[in-house]
């Protein structure tokens, strides 16, 4: 994967994490797996960057954490989003959609001319 792709992803990582947690508390590895699945393994290299992002979100008060026990009887740190985190997601997601569509549309353009209205 190209460096450009990682940068792009990182900037939207916060949003992906909040989305991942929208189904309930998850530990970091589960968040990583969900992103792997949902994005077609876009994060296959530098998966660790997920953790600073998680901790940063926690510092901002958008997620909170708790130590718990996994099904396989291991201690793991579970994250869940807070009310503030949910609000953040609701505000960010539509903006991201508009942005992504706008960029995608622009990149699909075939003519330098500005279409007259």
């Amino acid at each position: 994967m190209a460096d450009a792709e990682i940068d792009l992803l990182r900037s939207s990582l916060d949003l992906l994490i909040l989305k991942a947690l929208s189904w309930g508390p998850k530990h970091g590895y589960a968040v990583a797996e969900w992103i792997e699945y949902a994005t077609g393994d876009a994060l296959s290299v530098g998966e660790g960057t997920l953790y600073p992002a998680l901790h940063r979100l926690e510092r901002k008060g958008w997620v909170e954490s708790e130590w718990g026990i996994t099904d396989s009887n291991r201690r793991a740190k579970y994250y869940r989003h807070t009310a503030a985190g949910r609000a953040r997601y609701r505000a960010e997601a539509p903006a991201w959609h508009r942005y992504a569509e706008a960029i995608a549309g622009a990149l699909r353009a075939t003519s330098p001319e500005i279409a007259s209205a």
Partner: protein
Amino acid sequence: MSDRPSGWRRAFHLPFAARRVEVDVDEEIAFHLVMREERLRARGLAPEDARESARRRFGDVEDVRRECVEIDRQRARRRRATDFLEDLMQDVVLAFRGLRRAPGFAAAALLTLALGIGSATAIFSVAYGVLLRPLPFPDPDRLTEVSINLAGTGDEYGSLSWPEYVDLPRWTRSFTAVAAWTLRDRTVGGDGHPERITAASTSASLWDVLRVRAAMGRTYTAEEDVAGAPLVVVLSDALWRRRFGADPSVVGRPIQVDGLPRTVVGVLPPEVRLGGAEAFTPMGIDPARPPGRGRHFLRVLGRLRPDVSWAQAREDLAAFATRSLRENPTNYIGPGFTATARPLREAWYGAARPTMIALLATVGLLLLLAAVNVANLLLVRAEARQREMGVRAALGAGRGRLVRQLLTESLILSLLGALVGVPLAALCVRSLLAINPGVMPPGAEVAIDAGVVVAVVAVVAIAALVAGVAPALRAGSADVRTAITAGGAGGGRSGGRLRSVLVATEVALAAAMLVGAGLVGRSFQKLLAVDPGFAAEGALVMDVSLPNARYDTSTKVIAFHDQAIERLRALPGVRAAAATASLPLSGGTSQWSVEVEGRPNSKKDLETPFIVNGTRDVFRALGIAIVQGRAFSPEDQEGSAPVTVVSQALARKFWPGQDPLGRRFRLTGPDMPWITVVGVARDVRPEALSEPPKPTYYLLIPQFARMAGDADQGVTFVLRTAGDPTALTGAARAAIAELDPELALNKVQTLESVVASSVARPRFAASVLGAFGLSALVLAVVGVYGVLSYAMTRRRHELAVRMALGARPGHVSRLVVGSGMRLAAAGVAVGLVAAIAGSRVLTALLYEVSPTDPATLVAVGVTLLGAAAAASWLPAWRATTVNPAEVLRGE
């Protein structure tokens, strides 16, 4: 923070320690790697490959770890801060809620604290102004007052004469500069509103010695300090504001001072205060006609050289006195002439020192008493709250948390106390100074000092904190179950003992303070009972000073006196009117040595007597009885043979066992005529009620003027009336104004108020110490009552059992009163012993009362024991009125 769910991290009491943060991050990363590795192995990778692949996928572990740890640390720091604030808020809310729930406790504690903080702040502020506040001049520790002690005058720190002042810088080498000044009342006028002010006549060097610069304009120079120089004046800030409305254009303008125009050259900064003077003029001594060596009227200041010690300066001055004596042998009496230097602060404020120290000691005790009382109240409260604390501990509040809560409560109490106490202090200072003019040395500045407030509040807060911590530690360590089950009725015996000790301490402090108040109060009583030698009631007095400019000959002065007395006599109700140059008890005394006929050496071996110049009716006006011979009569004229009336003390001293009538003496000086004694007057206390009468002789102003060539320009008119003297004030003022409208009448007051203000300082001490003693008594009584009534609620069960078993009410109440009296007796004993040991502090304030006056000690003991008995009786009575059956059923 409300969205933090319960049972979150804090429930586990996991500290946000740096180590914890790292461990958490490590564990989290390790978990991720293990999970990924397992997943890869499940897909069929070899264990080695799986681990390698998981790490590669993760990226730089160390980077991630470092970044996470950093983020978490920031979060922990922020969290700790908000947690602290949150807990604090909770504590504050709890504290206020707790205080509201115990209004009796809150009121008692607040009152005690406010009283302690208020009185201590007030007195400390006053004392700081007098004892410690540095003089408002640069390098004030090098400033000194030079004084002389002339044998026979009885004035240890006497004024210098002009020739002595001139010799001083020439014959000594200890001073960088010396200056002379003297205070006099002057009239500022010229605009139809004459006003008497205190003014200073100074050498120009004063400004160099004090290193004072004018706030506006300039001070005067040595060139202006000579006879014949243009007349100038420097104004104090206060006068400039009061009389000239802070108008800057007054500088350079002439104003009338004692009838002469003087140009205002400058205004002093507000902090410069010099004996209460409001205007400063150069002395302008004419070197051709200097005042004689016998006229000691100059206060002299010097600035010590930086390399000269006080001991060296004193040696230097001793040598100066010896040389003065050697070079002017006829001017001094025998070897009795010494000179010395003392720090300026001591010279100015030294007289107020004993009062201040006594007040400080007393208010210190009161502050201590207040602190003990609050500690006691807090202890009682803490025991009553053991159950509450137990419950909170059971619900998971840590020991530190409980301690913090109690500390917060103590602190809030102290702050509330300060909130009430500091305005109280401001009020106290203002009213103390208002009620007692003349108590503070002139020029001393008194203001509530921020440092003082902080110190006092800190003392009380520390007491409250200590008192808060003791029960908190106990509460923190208490076995939760015991506290909850027994908290209502149990409690340690140690707490009870501690409280008893505290209460006994309170009683002891109160005893010591009451002894002080009693001693000073009795002294004041004795002072008021002293016969001043004149009749204080029914007389009006007013000071009049005639300006040199218009009254330049003694004929004019005497003519004015005659006309004024004639007019004043004519006022309705006036029985006698006279003028005197030295009104007793008002500070204006003078001494003039005499030579007794037939005893050539009398000038040297007799104490210099007080001289009082007056007009004919001075004895009738002042109400001084003539015990032998006659008073002045109409036949005694300016030109007739000089006569004198002498005091009993003088007659005894000069002619012991002989008839003084017809004896003669003369004033020392060239060509003085003999003066014949025609009468003996009752002794008068000229300086203070506490000072015994001094030998005094009375002369007629016109006869004195002929002998000395100088009539007294500043006199006090005395009007003896049949009715209320104050009713005459307006008419008397008008009579003088008719004669000379430009004269300012300074103090028009009754003779009684002159006497009253002469004892302003003892009255001040007596009333303040009395108020403190009373406060101490109240606090001690409240303390005894509080401890006993609390003990009674604790012993209800025991007393009920006793009564159920047949103990008579009398027996029970004796038991209760007895325990109260034991506390009080122990306190009284300790307090009286301490008072006997410490009352020497008061010696300077006592008048004809011994510091260990038995009557006072007994009275204090009886009062305190009586008060303690009364305070014990109420809880005792309540204990006997309970119904044993009800109590025992309720348990």
